[in-house]
C-alpha cells in the first residue's frame, strides 16, 4: 500500500500508565539478535536494522537499540542520530491503528487540514498529541500518499479512504471498525488453467489503483472466472495514468477491439466478465446467475452498475487524455504485467543493452546520450551525457551507479509509477549507464513510502539475476553488474544526491557542500553516477530508436518527453507523458479537460516545493527547462497542481514553505533558521497579524536563503514564496489588510448564514463544534466563538445559505 509508514502490527502494544514513554518492561530482544544476524554488523546496516526492529516492535524500544550497539559496529551516537533523523522511526509505541493523513498538495487544496481537525476533534486528541486516550488510534501526517486524484485521502492501517469531507469522519471511523470487527475476508483464488485462445482482463495495480480498490476488483474478477470458467485470464498491469478513472479494467479479447471500464467496483466485476466472456457450459452460467440473484435479494444493490462505467477506448474523453501524450518512459503503459520479464523482452526489452554490449563502446553510448539532448529528469535538468562523461573520466577502478527513487515532492508520483510499472526498463537503463561509466555495482534508493515499488524492483532484480541480465557475466559477456535496493526512511532531503549517498552509507541524510560532486567523490568516496528514475527509464528507448528519434521531440534545449502528475482542481487528473514544448494550457485544457466544477483557472503549481506557479495569463508557457525557470517556476520532478479561484495563493506558498521547512536537515543556518523565519512571517500574514514591511522583509530573506543555503533544498525552498509574491502580490496585500480573497485562511474568515436559510437544521445537526443552535424553521445563526471554520455547514446546506466573509 502506498504511504504505509509502519508495517502491520505483529502484536498489540499500547502505552500504559506505568510505561508512559512506551519502554514496555521486559522487551524480548531475541528478535534483535536475529535481525543483526540477518542484516550484518557493519555500520552501514543501521537503517535496515532499525526498519526491521520497528517492523517487529512497531516502534524502537531503547533496549533494542542498546542491544544493537552491543552486537554491531554501530555506536550509540550513530543510532541515536540516525533514528531521530528519519521520520519513519518512532521512539514511542503507536496506537492499535495508524491513521495516515495525506498532506500532499492535492489533498491540501482539497481541505485535508479540515479533515485532520475533524479526526482529532472526533477522537479527542489534543494539540501536541497524536494518539487518543485509549491508545486505539494514532494520527500521523504523511507527506503524500500519491493518490492525488482521490484527494483528500487518509489511510487507516491498510484501508484507504478518499474524497473525504470533515463531516464524513465519523462514518469513516465507524466503517473502519465494522470492517475490523468482520475481519477482512480473504478470498481463495484458484488459477485459471490456460487452454485455447484466452482473453485478457487487465487490472491496473499501481498504488493509486490499489488505493481505490482495484485489488478487490481483481479478486472479484478472479472469483467470477473461477466460478464460471469464463475463458480469460486476469492480468495485473502497471499504471495506466488515468487516475481520475480508477479502478480501471481493460478487456482485451482474443480477437476484436479492447474495451475499457472505469471506476469499477467489485460488485460490477462479474457483470463485466460475463458481458465479455461467455462461460463454459450453460449450466454453470445459469447456476452462477441464480446465486447472484439470491445475493442481490439479500442485499440492497439496485440497478446494473456496469453501464455507468463502460468507456470506449475511442471515447472522446479518453482520446483527449491520451491524444497529446507520447509514451517513451512509460511505453506500453497499462499493457504489461510489471514483473513479467518475458513480456518485457518480447516488446524489445533488453534489446538496447544487448546492442550496447555487442556493438557499442562506452564512448559511443555516451555520445548517443549526449546527442539525444537528454537532461536529468529529477528536476535540475543537468545534461545526462555530460554527467556520465564526468563519472567515466573520474579515476579509480571502483565506481557506482545509483537510481534516485526518493521522489518526495508532495503531489508528485511519476517515479513511483515508473518503478512500479516498468522495473525492467529502469534496470536496463542503469545497466547501460553502468557499462558506459565503468561501474560494477549499483543501488536503487527508494523511499520507504513506496513499498510496492520496493517489492517490484526487488523482484525484478532477482529475475534479472536468474536470467543472466545482471550478475558477474551480464548476457554472457565480461560485463559485471550487481544491483540492490536501499530503502529510504522518511526524509525528503535524501532526494538531494549527497544526502542520498550519506543515507546509503547509514548516516543521517545531511547534504554536504559540492564540489566535490559525486561524479568525482560519491558513495564511499568513489566516483558515482546518480540519476533519476525517469532518466534511466528513457535510456533504453534512446538507444533502441537512436538519439535523433528522441531529439525529434521537444524544444531546442529541452528534448524528448516528460512525465507529469496532473492533479488538483482538474477534471481529468492522472499521470501523463508529453513531449517537451507543449504548453501548460494544452496540458490543462486538452489532456486534463480544464478546471473542474465551473471554477476559474487561476494558476498551476509546477515543480512542487522547489517550484513556483505559472499564472493563468502565462498559460501559454512551454514545458521547457528554461522557459519554466524564466517565469519563476521550475521543471522539477514533474508535479502539476492546478489551482482555481477558490485557492488562496498565500496559503499555497505557506503550504510548500511549511513542507520544506519541516524537511530541512538542519545543517546550515539559512535553511534551518531562515526558512523557519520566513514561515513565521507567512504564518503572521495568514493569521491577520502581518505588519507593514513584512513583504519586503520576506522577499529579502527569501533571496538570501535562496542564494546562500548549502544545498538545493534550501536554495529552492523560497521559490513558491517568491513566485507568488511576483504574480499575486495583491493577495498578500489583501492579507495584510485582514482579508483573504479566496476565503481560505481560517483566521481571516467568518461563516454566516444568510436569508436563504430554510431552517432545516441539517447544519446544526452536523456542526462538530455545536456552534449552530437548533432552531427548526427559523434562520440559523453561527456562534463565531465556537465555530472552528471546518466548512461542514457550507457543504451540507441544501439551500446554499452559508456564506464565507
Amino acid at each position, binding site marked *: 500500500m502506498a504511504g504505509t509508514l509502519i508495517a502491520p502490527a505483529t502484536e498489540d502494544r499500547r502505552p500504559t500508565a506505568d510505561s508512559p514513554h512506551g519502554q514496555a518492561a521486559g522487551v524480548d530482544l531475541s528478535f534483535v539478535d536475529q535481525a543483526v544476524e540477518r542484516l550484518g554488523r557493519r555500520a552501514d546496516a543501521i537503517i535496515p536494522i532499525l526498519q526491521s526492529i520497528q517492523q517487529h516492535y512497531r516502534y524502537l524500544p531503547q533496549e533494542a537499540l542498546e542491544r544493537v550497539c552491543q552486537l554491531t559496529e554501530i555506536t550509540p551516537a550513530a543510532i541515536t542520530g540516525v533514528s531521530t533523523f528519519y521520520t519513519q522511526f518512532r521512539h514511542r509505541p503507536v496506537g492499535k491503528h495508524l491513521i495516515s493523513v495525506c498532506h500532499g498538495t492535492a489533498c491540501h487544496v482539497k481541505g485535508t487540514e479540515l479533515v485532520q481537525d475533524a479526526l482529532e476533534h472526533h477522537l479527542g486528541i489534543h494539540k501536541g498529541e497524536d494518539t487518543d486516550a485509549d491508545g486505539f488510534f494514532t494520527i500521523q501526517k504523511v507527506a503524500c500518499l500519491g493518490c492525488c486524484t482521490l484527494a483528500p485521502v487518509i489511510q487507516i492501517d491498510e484501508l484507504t479512504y478518499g474524497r473525504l469531507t470533515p463531516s464524513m469522519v465519523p462514518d469513516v471511523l465507524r466503517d473502519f471498525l465494522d470492517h475490523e470487527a468482520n475481519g477482512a475476508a480473504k478470498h481463495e483464488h484458484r488459477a485459471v488453467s490456460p487452454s485455447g485462445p484466452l482473453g485478457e482482463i487487465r487490472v491496473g495495480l499501481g498504488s493509486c489503483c490499489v488505493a481505490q480498490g482495484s485489488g478487490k476488483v481483481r479478486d472479484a474478477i478472479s472469483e467470477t472466472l473461477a466460478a464460471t470458467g469464463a475463458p480469460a485470464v486476469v492480468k495485473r498491469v502497471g499504471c495506466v495514468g488515468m487516475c481520475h478513472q480508477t479502478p480501471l479494467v481493460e478487456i482485451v479479447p482474443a480477437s476484436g477491439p479492447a474495451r475499457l471500464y472505469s471506476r469499477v467496483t467489485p460488485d460490477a466485476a462479474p457483470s463485466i466478465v460475463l458481458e465479455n466472456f461467455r462461460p463454459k457450459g450453460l449450466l454453470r452460467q445459469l447456476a452462477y446467475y441464480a446465486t447472484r440473484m439470491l445475493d442481490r435479494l439479500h442485499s440492497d444493490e439496485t440497478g446494473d452498475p456496469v453501464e455507468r462505467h463502460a468507456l470506449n477506448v475511442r471515447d472522446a474523453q479518453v482520446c483527449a487524455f491520451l491524444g497529446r501524450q507520447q509514451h517513451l518512459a512509460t511505453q506500453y503503459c497499462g499493457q504489461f504485467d510489471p514483473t513479467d520479464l518475458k513480456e518485457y523482452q518480447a516488446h524489445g526489452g533488453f534489446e538496447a543493452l544487448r546492442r550496447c554490449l555487442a556493438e557499442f563502446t562506452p564512448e559511443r553510448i555516451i555520445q548517443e546520450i549526449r546527442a539525444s539532448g537528454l537532461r536529468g529528469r529529477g528536476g535540475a535538468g543537468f545534461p545526462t551525457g555530460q554527467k556520465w562523461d564526468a563519472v567515466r573520466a573520474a579515476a579509480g577502478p571502483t565506481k557506482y551507479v545509483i537510481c534516485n527513487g526518493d521522489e518526495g515532492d508532495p503531489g508528485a508520483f511519476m517515479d513511483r509509477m515508473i518503478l512500479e510499472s516498468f522495473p525492467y526498463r529502469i534496470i536496463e537503463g542503469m545497466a547501460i549507464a553502468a557499462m558506459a561509466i565503468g561501474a560494477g555495482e549499483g543501488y536503487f534508493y527508494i523511499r520507504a513510502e513506496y513499498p510496492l515499488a520496493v517489492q517490484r524492483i526487488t523482484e525484478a532484480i532477482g529475475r534479472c539475476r536468474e536470467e543472466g541480465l545482471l550478475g558477474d557475466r551480464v548476457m554472457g559477456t565480461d560485463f559485471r553488474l550487481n544491483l540492490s535496493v536501499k530503502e529510504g526512511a522518511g526524509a525528503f532531503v535524501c532526494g538531494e544526491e549527497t544526502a542520498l549517498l550519506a543515507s546509503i552509507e547509514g548516516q543521517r541524510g545531511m547534504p554536504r*557542500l559540492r564540489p566535490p560532486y559525486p561524479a568525482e567523490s560519491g558513495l564511499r568516496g568513489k566516483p558515482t553516477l546518480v540519476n533519476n528514475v525517469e532518466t534511466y527509464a528513457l535510456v533504453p528507448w534512446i538507444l533502441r530508436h537512436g538519439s535523433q528519434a528522441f531529439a525529434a521531440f521537444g524544444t531546442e534545449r529541452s528534448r524528448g518527453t516528460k512525465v507529469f502528475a496532473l492533479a488538483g482542481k482538474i477534471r481529468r487528473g492522472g499521470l501523463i507523458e508529453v513531449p517537451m514544448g507543449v504548453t501548460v494550457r494544452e496540458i490543462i485544457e486538452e489532456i486534463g479537460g480544464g478546471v473542474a466544477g465551473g471554477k476559474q483557472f487561476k494558476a498551476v503549481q509546477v515543480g512542487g516545493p522547489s517550484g513556483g506557479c505559472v499564472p493563468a495569463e502565462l498559460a501559454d508557457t512551454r514545458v521547457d527547462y528554461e522557459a519554466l525557470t524564466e517565469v519563476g517556476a521550475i521543471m522539477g520532478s514533474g508535479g502539476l497542481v492546478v489551482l482555481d479561484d477558490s485557492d488562496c495563493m498565500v496559503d499555497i506558498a505557506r503550504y510548500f514553505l511549511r513542507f520544506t521547512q519541516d524537511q530541512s536537515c538542519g545543517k546550515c543556518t*539559512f535553511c534551518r533558521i531562515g526558512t523557519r523565519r520566513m514561515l513565521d512571517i507567512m504564518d503572521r500574514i495568514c493569521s491577520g497579524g502581518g505588519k507593514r514591511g513584512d513583504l519586503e522583509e520576506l522577499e529579502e530573506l527569501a533571496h538570501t536563503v535562496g*542564494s546562500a543555503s548549502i544545498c538545493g533544498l534550501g536554495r529552492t525552498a523560497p521559490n513558491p514564496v517568491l513566485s507568488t509574491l511576483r504574480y499575486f502580490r495583491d493577495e498578500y496585500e489583501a492579507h495584510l489588510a485582514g482579508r483573504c480573497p479566496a476565503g481560505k485562511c481560517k483566521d481571516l474568515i467568518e461563516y454566516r448564514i444568510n436569508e436563504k436559510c430554510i431552517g432545516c437544521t441539517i447544519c446544526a445537526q452536523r456542526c462538530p463544534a455545536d456552534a449552530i443552535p437548533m432552531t427548526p424553521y427559523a434562520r440559523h445563526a453561527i456562534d463565531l466563538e465556537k465555530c472552528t471554520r471546518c466548512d461542514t455547514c457550507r457543504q451540507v446546506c441544501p439551500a446554499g445559505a452559508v456564506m464565507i466573509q
Partner: protein
Amino acid sequence: MPTLTIDQREVTVPAGATILEAAERLGIEIPTLCFLRGYEPSTSCLVCMVKLRGRNGFVPACATRVADGMQVESETAEVHQVRRTALELLLSDHVGDCLAPCHFACPAHMDIPLMLRQISAENYAEAIVTVKRDIALPAVLGRVCPKPCEKGCRRNAADGAVAVCQLKRFVADLDLASQRPFLPECRPDTGKRVAIVGAGPTGLSAAYYLRQKGHAVTVFEAQECAGGRLLREVGEEELPRDVLDAEIGLILAIGVELNPSSRVEDRQTLDDLRNDFDAVLLACGAVDKSTVESWGLRATPRGVQIDKDTYQTSVSGVFAAGNAIRGKGLVVRSVADGKEAAAAVDTFLAGRPASAHERAFSVRIGRLEDGEIDQFLAMAGSAPRREPLQGLAGGFLSEEAVEQASRCLHCDCRALGNCKLRRYGSQYGADPNRFRGERAAVRQYADHPLVVYEPGKCIDCGLCIQIATRHGEPLGLTFVGRGFDVRIGVPFNRSLEEALGKAAAECVAACPTAALALKKERLRSELPILGQR
C-alpha cells in the same frame, strides 16, 4: 600552486587550500563560528560566506577550495549583508542574556555579576576594581541609591533580589578602611586640560575618569567644599560626612585639582574657561533657562541643551551632564552621566570623530516563563535575602557578604568575552531582534562536574560531536532530531558526565558560544567589547 584574488588582491596558495586559508595570508579576517582548524568543516554557520565572481550565490570560505584564477569577494557590502543575515538568524534562535538584566537596570551599567562572583570568592581587591570601573562614588551610592539594579534582578521574582547595593557598599567601605585604598592607574599626561564646573556627583565622576585618561583636570566649585547636592540634599545620618570626604579624597588623590569658591558668573567666565582649557564640562547641577542663555548656550525647559549622543552643547568644546541637563535625576544617573560625558570629552580631545555612545551588544531573554527561573536557582546559593546583622547603617560583615553574593543567579553569559557569535554580531552590526520568533525554553544542564550545557545557546555546529568522537568517548554526543528542532544530545538520554569524560575541556574551548561552558569562570572583567563606551 593556484593564484587567485580576494577583493582584487592577488595571492598564491598551495593546491587544495581553502579560500579561508588564502584570506588569512592576505590578512583578511573572514568570520567563522563552526570552523576549527584540524576538524572537518561542517559548513553549518555560513557566517564565512564569500562571493565568487561569475557564479550565482555565495559559498562558504571554510570549505571551498581555491582554483586558479578564482576571483573572490569578501569585504563588500553585499557579502557583509549575507554574513549579517546569518548572524541575525543565529541570534534569533539564541536563548540567553549576554549581559544580565541588572546590567541594564543600573544606570551606570556596572558589571554587577562579576562583582558578586568576586565577593563570593572573597576576592575583594578585584571587586573594588570592578566597581570603580563604572562607579566613582560607590560608598556614597551604597548609602543613597534607590537601587534600580535590584528591581531588575531576576531573583526578585523568586525569593528576593540579591542585595547588590549593600554588597557594593561593603566592597567600597572595606576599601576605604584599608591601609592602601584602590587608586586607579592614570595614562601618561596628554597635555590636554579640562575644566569641570561643579564638584557634585557628576563633576566628581567625570573628573575621576578624565584624569585616568591622562588629561589635566580642574574642578571649579562655587561652594567651599566638594560634594554638591550630596551635601545639600542628603542628611548626615544617611551619608556620614567622613564617608563622602574619604571617597572625594580618593578622586583628588589621582591628581584632580579642586578650585573651591569659584562660580561661573556669566558668559565671560565661560569664555575665559574656553580659552584657558581644551574642553569645558558643565556639571553645575540644575540651572534655569535664563542662566543657561546668559552663558550664551541654548537651553531646554530642563537645563542645558546637548546632543544626547555626545554631551556636546551648542558651543563647540563645551559639554554638559548631570542635573545641568536633566534638572532632576538620581545620584546614580549623575554618576553615570559623569562617566559617559568623560568618555565623550576624551573622544573630542583625541580628535576622533564624535560618535554615538555605543551600547554593549547583548541578546536578551526578556521575561522568563513559569518555572524557568528554577534552572537558574538550581545553580545559585540557596540562602534567603538578609539585611545586615548589624543593621542597615552598619553594612554587611564579610561572611554575610559572601553568602549574599553567592545568591547571584549568574544571568550573564559564561562566555561573555570569548563568544564568537557576540563578537561578530557586534562587529557586523547584527540586530538580534530582526527575526523575532517563538523563543525556545531556557534550559541549563549542570549534571556534569565541570561543564554547564545550555542548549538554547547552541548553534548546532557539531564541533563538540567531532571532538568527542576524536577523543574516543564511548558514549559521546550526537545530533538529535533534524531541521529547526535539531539539538545536540547525549545518546539514550544519558548524562553529560557520561558523554564527556576526557573531551569536556576541549569542547568548551571549541564551543563558539556558551552552549558548553565551564561552571567556574570569568573572575576578570571581559567588558567592554568592541568599542563599547
